[in-house]
């Protein structure tokens, strides 16, 4: 299935991916609204947090009471139908990658990486190839 592969060994911690994501998804520069997160604890190697589009059964999909989280049949990407999300945070607790699915700081609904539908904006800006796109 389509997903973003993280290679933290190349990551310099620049965080440009977070800005690219928030610009694409929210039309603002704001790392706290980004679906990919770079955690920098200098001098340690940065950590990359991004949804890996789990194999079946995906924990977030399983625990969603309103079926707001569903898998796109063609691409296999786990997607959130925002109008169905009631902000229960069950998915946030169930996710095995803490931070990959999180509550939007203003809208109070769950958000996560949907690989920009197959043309991820963050990957375009990652010159070190710490983020790579793997297609279907």
């Amino acid at each position, binding site marked *: 299935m389509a997903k973003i592969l993280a290679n933290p060994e190349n990551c310099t911690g620049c965080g440009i991916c977070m800005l690219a994501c928030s610009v694409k998804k*929210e039309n603002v520069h704001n790392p706290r609204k980004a679906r990919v997160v770079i955690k920098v604890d*200098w001098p340690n190697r940065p950590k990359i947090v991004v949804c890996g589009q789990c194999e079946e059964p995906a924990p977030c999909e399983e625990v969603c009471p309103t079926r707001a989280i569903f898998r796109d049949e063609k691409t296999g990407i786990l997607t959130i139908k925002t109008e169905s999300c009631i902000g229960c945070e069950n998915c946030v607790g169930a996710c095995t990658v803490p931070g990959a699915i999180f509550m939007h700081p203003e809208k109070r609904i769950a958000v996560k990486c949907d690989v920009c539908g197959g043309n991820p904006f963050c990957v375009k800006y990652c010159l070190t190839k710490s983020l790579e796109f793997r297609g279907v």
Partner: protein
Amino acid sequence: MAGGYIGKILRVDLTKYEVLSKPVDSGLIETYLGGKGFGARILFDDVRKDIDPLGTENEIIFSTGPLTGTLAPGSSKFEVVTKSPLTGTFLNSDCGGCFGGELKFAGYDAIVIKGRACRPVFLSINSGKAEIRDAEGIWGRKTSDTERIIREDLNDEEAKIACIGPAGEKLTRISCIWTSRSRTAARGGAGAVMGSKNLKAISVRGNGDIKIAQPTKFLEAIDKVYEEIEPLFMWAPSIGTAATVSIANLAGILPTRNFQTGVFEEADSISHEALMKNSTRSVACFPCPGRCGKLTSITTGPYAGTIVEVEYETIYALGSNCGVSSMEAIAKANSLCDEYGIDTMSTGCTIAFAMECYQRGIIGKQDTNGIELEFGDHNALVQMVEKIGKRDGFGGVLAEGSVRASQIIGKGAENYVMHSKKLELGGYDPRGMQGVGLGFATSDRGGCHQRSAGLVGAELLAGKKVPADRYVDRFEIDGRAKLVKDMQDWSALLDSTGLCWFVGSYMKWVTVAEILSAATGISFNEHRLRLIGERIWNLTRMFNVREGFTSKEDSLPERFLKEPMPEGPSKGYVCRLNEMLSDYYAIRGWDEKGIPTAKTIKRLDIM
């Protein structure tokens, strides 16, 4: 509010324990842009002539630009602006890392701090909310400890910290401000200004947005600028700034043993190849694709356990300028500087000055607490750095910076201080780089290489990493005054946008105008940006004029003017500063004393 800006400035009065949020004046944006420009205007208007830089009246300003924290490549910078306790001049000391962007996410374009808290405090800003908190428990702590304790205190591991170490607390005039990810606002003693205000640290964190006025145009301009900065990627990701060691040595301008020569016989030991032997990986500021930082990890020998990012100016100051050829010792000394919160450049150069005094018998072991302060002795270097950090014994003398130390020492020591306006110099001997000499002498904050940093490329890297149309002959002075002026105006502009010089130096005025126009929604063009750069440069000049500085202080040590370079590819040359200086004043529209004429002031609409 124009795009790119948050639209708010935080005013802090530590004497009154008062924090106030003020709107950003749109007139200030149009005329001074941000960063250095904002800081210069605010400082000039707020403080009077002759105030004590370490008194309550001085202000310390943390100021971002409209591009700070955006997708514009290299937009990591914020500026610390204050009256310098080292030079007595205007000071802007810029800093990368991650603090600048976070300040904007936390809800402010700038923080202006005055007064003095009655006991140690730190300022915490979280999503628009600012509070002054107790710092009694962290006073005396080194920098990385301070970061850790504040994060624990706030229960926020993502808080971005700007703080001082023990040196800033002790009002050390060569102290720096250290920030998260170990980036510093290093030069000019801004750490001591924080110390004088009992302000140990500032913590920023926020969920806020930076909004762009014309997002589609902005992204188009960014795509274009990535093509323009392509040459950056030839050196920054792979070898970093340490590449300059070999280049400078081959040109015979690598400052060695307190600028006694420009050739260091052991340059190979401190070259980028030597650094890369210990380098584990590249590190970038937020948000920069350049990744010039090289994380160095020393695993063997007496300095094992040291982890630090070493860059060129540090290598020259603590290395060749002290005759030290041990990269491990340079890394250790660098790390100590960061932990105590002192500027690696001024520290290295001040020790180099003391080493020359020792060499010439002006001081001896009885003065240096028994340390044999000989050129090339890396143990002596590391011990002395620690003493400066602690202000212990002779370290307390050197902590005042090289000029004041020479006055304390006396006995002709003044002849061996390598400075301009009391700021220790950047790592380029001006005898072999004429324009750099003029840049050192006329820099607003004293002997700084960055204010006309393009010259390093133009004069030194000819044929290597810069486009051919930017080369100049480093021994010639024709046209150099105009070049220095243009580069100073360019630096003033870049320092007001939030862009890093390393990345920005490859950009064209017109491209930066496009990015700024799309980001802010204000129509900028090259002419307008040049005017803003020149306006800022002249305003900081007026600040210095108000403090009594004239052409007398636009000077260099006699060594560069009278003693020809003794050996190497720059042998026989002196810096022809005075010939360039009158040209420079004329081009600037300044009188023969170096004071902007009434006509210039009016043209730039400064007063």
